[in-house]
């Protein structure tokens, strides 16, 4: 392995920070969900990189479970977005303020 594992960890942190910035900055609900996918991917990179460092394969099994949860999350989240769009005819988070006092 010629690349040290710290490089992969730095890349994972970079993608995680980009996903967080996307969640804070974006206004469309669909792009906020896409940014969460970015954060899940950065966790996957960190799991596999630590596996190679620690000579183990358990992290790759957790990557498998993260893939399962990501599929469930995308299905439920996008179903909710469809329901919200049918009710409000909008996907802008600034305008979906029914719970605000």
């Amino acid at each position, binding site marked *: 392995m010629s690349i040290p594992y710290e490089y992969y960890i*730095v890349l994972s942190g970079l993608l995680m920070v980009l996903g967080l910035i996307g969640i804070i900055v974006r206004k469309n609900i669909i792009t906020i969900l896409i940014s969460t996918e970015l954060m899940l991917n950065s966790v*996957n990179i960190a799991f596999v990189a630590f596996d*190679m460092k620690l000579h183990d*394969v358990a992290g790759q099994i957790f990557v498998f479970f993260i893939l399962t949860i990501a599929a469930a999350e*995308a299905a*439920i989240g996008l179903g909710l977005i469809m329901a919200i769009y049918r009710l409000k005819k909008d996907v802008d988070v600034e305008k979906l303020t029914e719970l605000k006092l």
Partner: protein
Amino acid sequence: MDLNAIAFWTFSTLAVLSAIYVVFGKNIVYTVLALISTLIMVSGLFFTLGAELVGALQILIYAVAIVVFYVLVISTVPEYKGKPVDGKYMLLSIPFGFILFLELAYVSLYGAWQSATGIFDEKVINEIGNAKAVGTLLFTKYLFPFEVASLILLVAMIGAIIIGRKKEDVHQEA
């Protein structure tokens, strides 16, 4: 510079560039295309790390199945007219991102020195293969979480059908 290093730098640069477009891009269809690009590059990084099974699953599940969900929903919701990025939160996001990055760096660098190492070093992996090592552990030690994962997928499927269904049939009956 050997082939592994060239692959790492190519994949990681393209992944970060695509991720920047995912976060700041204007057109939402191009955003989803950039997401596919990021996912395929991350899969390539898994291959350079020697995790072939996870890399193949990443392409099959993420870059094909999940992205199809997004494209379907984007095609049914009409085009978003407002500004893609809110300027007043841009300044707020920089310190939060910096703090998160410092915290991640601290935890990952100091945690890795103190962890115990497993038995799957490079010689064992070369002998039995990555897919066999992962599959053996998945179907012995992690068998119960595996079954629970199938239950989660079933519940998510039923929930997505019920939440996303049109309500017109209910009104006709009432």
